[in-house]
């Protein structure tokens, strides 16, 4: 059973499904919807096979396959996952059926919509599984295109601007990465794009620094780190709900994942050297994202900026150079995917009912739609980092990890937790509390069955990770430890703090 190539099948099930949906007549909307749901569920079922067969205590790449592709150039089809990518893969395939449910009410150009959605899934799964730089880049760009169309064709009023901004920001970054990949390829001598072959390529520090910066540019845009973040609010705001969910939950993680998988292991010396800068950016992002989020008038923009703050935590954890930080950062990637995904779903539900995202247009909805209000509060609290819910575990580990290495940096980072409470609760207050002011708000219907089905799994996971994160951490830790060791390999990092000693 474990010989079955679960991972590779999972990657291509959605693509195959997209092709099959291409054969369905375009006006059979319901058939298309059910088919998409089926395909995404099938992909999820296959990834469950990945999860079950994953060997918990190993830091090596598992469950992948290797095949020659373009032999002369050393390009191969090579996949595999470790504890870092495992949960990214799981998150993607887990969220996708929910996104199909979210999109159930899409009525315009239904067929291409779902085809793009499925193509997007293949792209994302591929990014997290590829172990060949060429293949990685291919998937990386391949995930960009469906997203561009999802925003550009099914978005809201200002969608073209947003789609273009999204596309250009990420493209500029990824082109720099392409150059760096090619440079690395030629520098390695041995003609291979294989990740494992390229690891440990000896490079001068200057070269490393340049290459790292090129990779970093691509990933930092995607994460996004301040000040490269301004595409995010626009893209989030204009994207259809499923697009926002996928964007926040998975696409942003591609950046953070790239930093862990490629940025640090390929160029450890350069990464180590730039740790203070990156940590500075991350902390600025935490505070800045929170401050700007507090001032937003558009609910989706607010959540988008909260993503900037949360991803600041993730990057902080990744680069702080302690196991707690790294594991927390990876777990927080999952957490953010769940809670921000759920938040976007909830905002999408509000938009479906009221056709507005302006906070000022709402008010008092806790009266007319108490369940939605309760769920929103619940998810917001997870995002705030209430202990017992998932966000706390990740943030706590990141901050403890930060304290271990850099005691002072933890102060502004922790203050971000306070700010998160301010902007989210303020938003909650303005949307769900206070008097019911307008007629449409008064008669707004509460949650329906489809929405319960799409939110319930998210909420269950939010609680589960908050209470019992051990199964997740057990799988993340070995791989995280490997990367931390790569980052800490020499003693460049100043031994600040109380617990300076490093294994």
């Amino acid at each position, binding site marked *: 059973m474990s010989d079955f190539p679960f991972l590779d099948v999972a990657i291509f099930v959605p693509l195959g499904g997209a092709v099959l949906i291409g054969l369905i007549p375009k006006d059979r909307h319901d058939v298309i919807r059910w088919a998409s749901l089926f395909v995404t569920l099938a992909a999820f079922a296959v990834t469950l096979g990945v999860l079950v067969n994953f060997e918990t205590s190993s830091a090596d790449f598992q469950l992948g396959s290797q095949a020659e592709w373009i032999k002369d150039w050393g390009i191969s089809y090579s996949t595999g996952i470790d504890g870092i990518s495992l949960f990214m893969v799981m998150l993607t395939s887990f969220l996708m059926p929910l996104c199909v449910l979210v999109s159930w009410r899409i009525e315009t150009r239904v067929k291409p919509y779902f085809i793009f959605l499925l193509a997007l899934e293949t792209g994302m799964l591929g990014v997290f599984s590829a172990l060949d730089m060429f293949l990685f880049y291919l998937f990386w760009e391949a995930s960009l295109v469906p997203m561009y169309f999802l925003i550009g064709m099914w978005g809201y009023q200002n969608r073209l601007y947003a789609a273009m901004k999204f596309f250009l*920001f990420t493209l500029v970054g990824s082109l720099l990465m392409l150059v760096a990949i090619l440079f690395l390829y030629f520098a390695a001598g041995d003609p291979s794009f294989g990740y494992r072959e390229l690891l440990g390529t000896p490079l001068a520090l200057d070269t490393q620094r340049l290459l790292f910066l090129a990779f970093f540019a691509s990933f930092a845009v995607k994460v996004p780190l301040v*000040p490269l*973040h*301004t*595409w995010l609010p626009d893209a989030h705001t204009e994207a259809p709900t499923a697009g926002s969910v996928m964007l926040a939950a998975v696409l942003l993680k591609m950046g953070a994942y790239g930093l862990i998988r490629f940025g640090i292991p390929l160029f450890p010396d350069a990464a180590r050297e730039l740790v203070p800068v990156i940590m500075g950016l991350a902390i600025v992002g935490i505070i*800045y994202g929170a*401050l*700007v989020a507090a*001032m*937003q008038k558009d609910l989706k923009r607010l959540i988008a900026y909260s993503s900037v703050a949360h991803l600041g935590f993730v990057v902080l954890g990744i680069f702080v150079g*302690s*196991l*707690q930080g790294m*594991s*927390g950062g990876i777990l927080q990637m999952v957490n953010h995917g769940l809670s921000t995904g759920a938040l976007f779903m909830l905002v999408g539900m509000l938009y479906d009912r009221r056709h507005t995202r302006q906070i000022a247009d709402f008010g*008092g909805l*806790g*009266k007319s739609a*108490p369940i939605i209000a309760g769920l929103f509060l619940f998810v917001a*609290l997870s995002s705030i980092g*209430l*202990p*017992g819910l998932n966000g*706390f*575990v990740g943030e*706590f*580990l990141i*901050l*403890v990890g930060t*304290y*271990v290495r850099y*005691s002072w940096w*933890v*102060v502004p980072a*922790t*203050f971000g*937790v*306070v700010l998160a*409470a*301010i902007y989210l*609760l*303020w938003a909650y*207050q303005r949307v*769900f*509390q*206070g*008097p*019911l002011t307008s007629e449409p708000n008064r008669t707004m219907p509460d949650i329906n069955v489809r929405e319960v089905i799409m939110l319930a799994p998210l909420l269950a996971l939010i609680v589960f990770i908050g*209470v*019992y*994160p*051990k199964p997740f*951490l*057990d799988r993340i*830790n070995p791989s995280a*430890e490997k990367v931390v060791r790569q980052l800490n390999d020499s003693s460049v990092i100043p031994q600040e703090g*109380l*617990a300076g*000693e490093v*294994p």
Partner: protein
Amino acid sequence: MTFAASTLPTDEATFAQLIFGAPLLGAVLLLFFGKRLGKLSGIIGSATVGIAFVFGVLSFMDLTSIATGHGENARVLTKSWFTWIEVGDFNVHMSLVIDQLSIVMVFVITGVGFLIHVYSIGYMSSEENYGRFFAYLNLFIAAMLLLVLGDNLLVMFIGWEGVGLCSYLLIGFWFEDRANATAAKKAFVVNRIGDFSFLLGIFLLAVSAGTLTFAGINESAVSGAIGGSMATVGALLLFGGAAGKSAQIPLYVWLPDAMAGPTPVSALIHAATMVTAGVYMVARTFPLFEAASFDVLLLVAWVGGATAVITAIVAAAEYDIKKILAYSTISQLGYMFLALGVGAYSIAIFHLVTHAFFKALMFLGSGSVMHALDGETDVRRMGGLRKVMPITGWTFMMGWLAICGIVPFSGFFSKDAILAGAWADGQYVLWGLGVATAALTAFYMSRLYLRVFEGGVVMPEGTHAHDAPPTMAAALIPLGILSLAAGALNFPGGLTFEHFLEPVLGEPEVAHGLTAWLLGGAATVVAVGGIAVAWALYLRAGGLQVRDRTERMLGPAVRAARNKLYVDRTYETLILQPGRDLAVFCTEVVDRKIIDGAVNGTGKLVAGSSELLRRLQTGYVRNYAAAFLVGVVVVFSILIVRVAA
């Protein structure tokens, strides 16, 4: 890494998880089915807390049945479920501990909690979201129990934040009113600021002590494993968290606003239990405070003393019955911190217990008054109500006398012990502050009680006051008795309560002999004095003139007190407004102008250049041919020059 990995402790406590589990189950049940259960939810809610109380009693019996004699801390029961977080050497277990301290807290929480639940059945009977109310209340009890039962800082923090959340939910229970929602948010955010400090403290202790269990932290504090300066910073940070939750200077501002919630909530959360969490936390970790190189305990005492006096002054100027009680609560919490600061930890807990009884009682009594007077809260429109609602009036009197510190009411014993502790610690100024607070307390509480319950009957027009319905009375009467009698728990000479807590909190230093009698006498004298002044000003004929005269005399001071000493306004101008300005600056200038400006500027530059360049595209094919020719000539020329050269 420096964390001391620990294995799961053994399972000893049989009922710990049940104590905590019963109300949690109730909360989940009511959250999902509250609407359908209707009136049944009140009963379910109360029953689960009652069950928790029973399990508490069972645990207590377990605890006392352990043979003592293997050292001081032998009476500890732990219950571990599973490892919560484990990364590398760092791990935190989901485990509970039952010892003397936590069992006392369990009794207070489940006992008072149960009575307040029962009271709420009557008080909230006309409420639309009846089920939801009890769900939140049950959730609160569960979280509070987790807070006191947790055997490490992080499990405690779950409860800590959980009670904060419930407080938020319950303050904002009537969220249709913007003010209530704002008060709820304010409470949560101010608490978060405290939590910020608490979290930093947790990080520090996690790294410097290598563990988060109380046992481990206290042990390293005693053994000196945590250095003096580390202990100082850690203790300060923990105290910051405590000050947030227990509404001490400078973070007390949320508590008066929190009165926006239903009155049982104020009684349960904002008087009896949640706000005392800070006191509990400091008591739990007192060895750390003692290990600090800087005298953090003295700071705690001073903060407590200052809070006690200042908020007592504000209370004396308030007219809103619940606000008076709220400021009084802050003031009494200050007392508890004062006790902690002078090293009288068990006395602080004792005062916590008695305060829980009499303050809950008074809140419930005020709720009964509001219930009778259609929600009226202004004491100026009340009077002589004891005649109209005897049960409420008599029980409130118990509370009043208790808080004033009149013998033999419970408050006398706990307050007197605190003052004696301060004196014994040699902190005479703090003792003075305590005495001043006692006088002020007696004054403002008498002002409240005498105005509302004594004298001629005054009621807002159109109200038909009636006494508390049975369920409410069922809570008031036991609390009245407890307010009267709880002093017996720690009767001087017997000292059972202190003795009971001694294994956990150590032996408090108290005054003995003649000093003790003198101190007790002094406290009684000031209390009686305060009551007398209040009587003279508010009940005696002609008191009004005296009142006017003194108010004129103290003009600015009274105005300041009426304006809550301008604290809220100061925070607004010094912290909130600059914060908002910064946020606006980031949004409008940095984000929109600078970053997006740069991005869009690049776009505009490209667009502008192509606007110019596209003019070359004339559409005339002969122009293109001419351009072609130019190119040919240029290339040709270059070739010639290069070949010739």
